[in-house]
């Protein structure tokens, strides 16, 4: 073994903030449905605390043995609307509390899957869940939620888009930060280990371990070494770096699955930033050659980054899934925050960037007085990009009461701080209030 390899690995962790962002245990709740909501809640608590009881201890032991931090230990479950049966919006809260209690008992950071999939229409359970969201997200601590409102095959449920805009506003009225725990998706993936959007799809095995790797700092350092060289070299450098990062994810995931006696699912090779300096996707884009993220060329640089990360990672892992690409949350990325403050990065540019990266409008603060229909219209725009282009898009937007453009809002910890960004003030209400269904796009004649 060469000492240079040893040094490189240690430097990645010590200096470049490399981490395994999450080891997420996916647990199916399809077999927990009881004759009453109370019984289902008990079964959910029991199943999670049985299967995940050693998750945190096993992950911590792996951290110790291999010297790579595992930042979060998480659980994802079957979308709760599917196991809610005939529960009404009051009763379904019992299931939210069962998830929260179970997560606290086993000591994980979050549990995701308080979710509904409504791209084609609402079931009884879907509506109960969505109506319960303001209370569910403010009465629990660790529960994360997602709602899928569109897909390339089903089109877009505009009634759901309208309802989610209203829900975001209701959540804001109860809490400044709870909207950070909810994602509104188009083309949601079923094996995503990242929050807030993780849930355990119905086609997944009973219990599975999925791993999310991160490491924008490592990519940035590698790019600093090829300054001034051709863009071909940039792509190659990102691919090689992504390969190395993903290999660690593969190792950690297979070890965790083996020690917990469950199946190993996928590695999600995403560049997920944290608010720490040097752990920023914006800084990677700037290392490619932009004076600041948001400058012309940002979309092109991000497309190259996102694609090279996938290409490097695919060969390094036995199974790749989740979102896999680059995340561009504003509040969680020091470089993005700087660019918004400087006026370089606008909401319109962020929207363009989401057409080539792995997610969407993420962790963006907007004024509290923004109308629900405007928020719905932002969701619809983002979903349209995903639906038309066969990719996942997501919206996690944070209106904050009593704030105006330019104010800073602090969300705490990994969620970071965000400058309040301006939205277009002209109304989208007549469009959103039409309701109904946007048909699925035609999948040929692609121009």
């Amino acid at each position, binding site marked *: 073994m060469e000492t240079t390899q040893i*040094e490189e690995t240690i430097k990645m962790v010590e200096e470049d903030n490399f981490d395994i962002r999450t080891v997420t245990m996916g647990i199916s709740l399809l077999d927990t449905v009881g004759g009453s909501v109370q019984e289902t809640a008990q079964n959910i608590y029991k199943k999670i605390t049985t299967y995940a009881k050693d998750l945190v201890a096993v992950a911590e032991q792996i951290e110790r043995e291999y*010297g*790579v931090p595992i930042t979060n230990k998480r659980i994802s479950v079957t979308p709760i609307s599917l196991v809610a049966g005939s529960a009404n919006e009051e009763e379904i809260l019992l299931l939210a509390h069962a998830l929260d209690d179970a997560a606290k008992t086993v000591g994980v950071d979050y549990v995701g899957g308080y979710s509904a999939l409504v791209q084609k229409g609402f079931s009884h359970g879907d509506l109960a869940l969505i109506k319960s969201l303001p209370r569910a997200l403010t009465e629990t601590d660790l529960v994360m939620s997602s709602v899928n409102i569109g897909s390339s095959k089903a089109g877009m449920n505009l009634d759901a888009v309208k309802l989610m805009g209203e829900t975001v506003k209701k959540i804001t009225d109860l809490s400044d930060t709870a909207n950070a725990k909810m994602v509104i998706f188009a083309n949601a993936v079923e094996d995503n280990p990242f929050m807030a959007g993780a849930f355990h799809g119905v086609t997944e095995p009973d219990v599975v371990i999925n791993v999310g790797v991160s490491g924008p700092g490592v990519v940035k350092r590698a790019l600093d070494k090829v300054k001034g060289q051709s863009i071909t070299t940039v792509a190659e450098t990102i691919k090689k770096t992504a390969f190395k990062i993903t290999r660690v994810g593969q190792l950690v995931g297979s070890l965790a699955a083996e020690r917990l006696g469950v199946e190993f699912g996928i590695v999600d090779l995403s560049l997920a930033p944290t608010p720490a300096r040097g752990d920023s996707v914006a800084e990677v884009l700037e290392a490619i050659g932009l004076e600041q993220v948001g400058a012309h060329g940002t979309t092109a640089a991000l497309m190259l980054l996102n694609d090279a990360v996938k290409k490097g990672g695919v060969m390094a892992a036995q199974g790749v899934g989740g979102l896999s690409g680059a995340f561009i949350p504003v509040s969680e990325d020091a470089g993005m925050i700087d660019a918004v403050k400087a006026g370089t990065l606008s909401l319109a540019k962020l929207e363009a960037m989401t057409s080539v990266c792995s997610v969407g409008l993420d962790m963006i603060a907007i004024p509290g007085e923004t109308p629900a229909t405007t928020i719905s219209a932002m969701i619809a725009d983002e979903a349209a990009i995903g639906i038309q282009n066969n990719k996942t898009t997501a919206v996690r937007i944070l209106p904050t009461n009593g704030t105006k453009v330019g104010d800073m809002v602090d969300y705490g910890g990994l969620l970071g701080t965000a400058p309040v960004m301006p939205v277009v003030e002209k109304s989208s209400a007549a469009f959103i209030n039409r309701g109904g269904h946007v048909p699925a796009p035609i999948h040929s004649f692609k121009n």
Partner: protein
Amino acid sequence: MKAVVTVVGQDKAGIVAGIATELATHGVNILDLSQTIMSSTFTMSMLVGIAGEDSFNEIHAALKEKGTAMGVSVHVQREEIFDAMAHI
């Protein structure tokens, strides 16, 4: 299991002896060793054999403590992590 012990810090007398003594106390066999000094920074990598998970935790804690006492940074990591990253 095999593990890699790396020690980095300001060069001074007794670093190798201190770490090696700590390893010997715990019955750990040193399989390979490489050491350099670059502009007064001491760098050492050791490949060692460890009996199992319990003794790994014990040795990990003991070496970290020893490193703090000597004012050097010590890492103990299982060797698979380095293989995974550098080889297909």
